[in-house]
């Protein structure tokens, strides 16, 4: 498999990013850099700011304070970025129609869409379900279709928001396997999870969020072997961080 050239979107740098909503600080002075390479995994409890972090990094939310750059530039349209939401919404179309729509939006020529659709659907293990209405799929299948739809944009960065949170172990393994394959093909993965096992299996780097602040970030091996902060130690020990 050829390695796509890294898009202009990498590295993603957040400088002192704050996100406020209704008087509540959701992200608090977050400064972090996401470079090329193995997946960057965001960990942290529910409400720690993972989803907001991903939305800021995707470019869907503007920081209230601070700035963000993609490849050193402040305004980069999300042509080579894609996101898989925690609860993806299926378009009221067939399975193939959902992928075809994303391809059309990404300006893929009409005569290439059919084989690209088939290729993406077999990558996520949905070959043969082209004609099925997307909303009739199971939860795990919908998650995989959403992944195919995100990949249809040929992203250089793929953000995933707890893609396995509501899935059983078999469906989880299917998603993780696809994510690893996509990562190996050169797409930068930035994924949020509150599942430590999943974080260990996938992470190259870790960003540990707690109450909207980045507590630790760095290579996953070091983080899991010797967390530098009390909060991280307690999180890894399975204590309830409130």
């Amino acid at each position, binding site marked *: 498999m050829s390695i796509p050239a890294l898009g202009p979107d990498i590295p993603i740098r957040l400088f002192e990013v704050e996100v406020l909503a209704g008087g509540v600080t959701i992200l608090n002075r977050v400064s972090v850099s996401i470079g090329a390479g193995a997946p960057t995994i965001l960990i942290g409890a529910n409400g720690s700011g993972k989803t907001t972090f991903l939305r800021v990094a995707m470019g869907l939310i503007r920081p209230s304070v601070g700035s963000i750059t993609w490849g050193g530039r402040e305004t980069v349209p999300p042509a080579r970025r894609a996101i898989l939401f925690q609860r993806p919404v299926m*378009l009221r179309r067939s399975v193939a129609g959902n992928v075809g729509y994303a391809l059309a939006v990404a300006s893929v020529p009409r005569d290439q869409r059919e084989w690209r659709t088939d290729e993406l659907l077999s990558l996520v293990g949905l070959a043969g379900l082209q004609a099925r209405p997307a909303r009739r799929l199971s939860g795990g299948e919908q998650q995989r279709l959403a992944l195919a739809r995100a990949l249809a944009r040929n992203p250089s960065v793929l953000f995933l928001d707890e893609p396995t949170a509501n899935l059983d172990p078999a469906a989880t393994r299917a998603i993780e396997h696809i994510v690893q394959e996509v990562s190996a093909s050169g797409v930068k993965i930035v994924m949020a999870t509150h599942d430590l096992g999943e974080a260990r299996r996938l992470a190259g780097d870790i960003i540990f969020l707690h109450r909207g602040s980045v507590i630790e970030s760095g290579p996953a091996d070091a983080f899991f072997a010797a967390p530098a902060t009390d909060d991280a130690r307690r999180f890894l020990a399975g204590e309830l961080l409130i």
Partner: protein
Amino acid sequence: MIENASALNMVLTGDPVLFSIVLLSLVVSLSAVLFAALIGVPLGALIALTQFRGRGPVVIVLNALMGLPPVVVGLSVFLMLSRSGPLGSLGLLFTPEAMVIAQTVLVTPIIAALARQTIEDLWVEYRDELDAMDVGPALRVRTLIWDARFSLVTALLAGFGRAVAEVGAIIIVGGNIQGFTRTMTTAIALETSKGELQLALGLGIVLLIIVVLINAMAWVARRAGEHFAA
């Protein structure tokens, strides 16, 4: 009973007078729904997708206009089109065109209000995904209208049901002229008041059949929609 039987006979044998009246009714109401859809669906989409000051009152007024009394619409259009009215020079009063205009005015708010609700509900659902795909405003509207098409068909059929069954607006602006502006509902009103129940009943039967067919089509559209939108 005799009248019932001969009325049914008129329907079954395709009586030419009855046929021309039915045809005019359908042409007028279908044209009105076509124009109302061309105005109402984009208008509904526009209100659904834009934020502006006074949006709440606009939605309330639009919903209220769904209940416009046909005679009031008829009177307003009559005043516009009458010789001394602002559009009097067009000479449209007491023509089928005038009836199409009146019914378009009557049906547009129904289609616009139902389209607004449908498209707004879908927008709330689709918003994140379309934002993430960086879909531009024009494609956004097209996507939402296309994906809401089955619900929108129901809105069009609701508008058609309203148009084909109303008598107040078209009798005022059309004048119920035999062979020219006489429709099913205006003919029923006239023939009943004349005591000519045979034609009135025949037309009543056809009108009922059409209304049942509209509802059947609405049901099929909804079923088809559920297939995709489970």
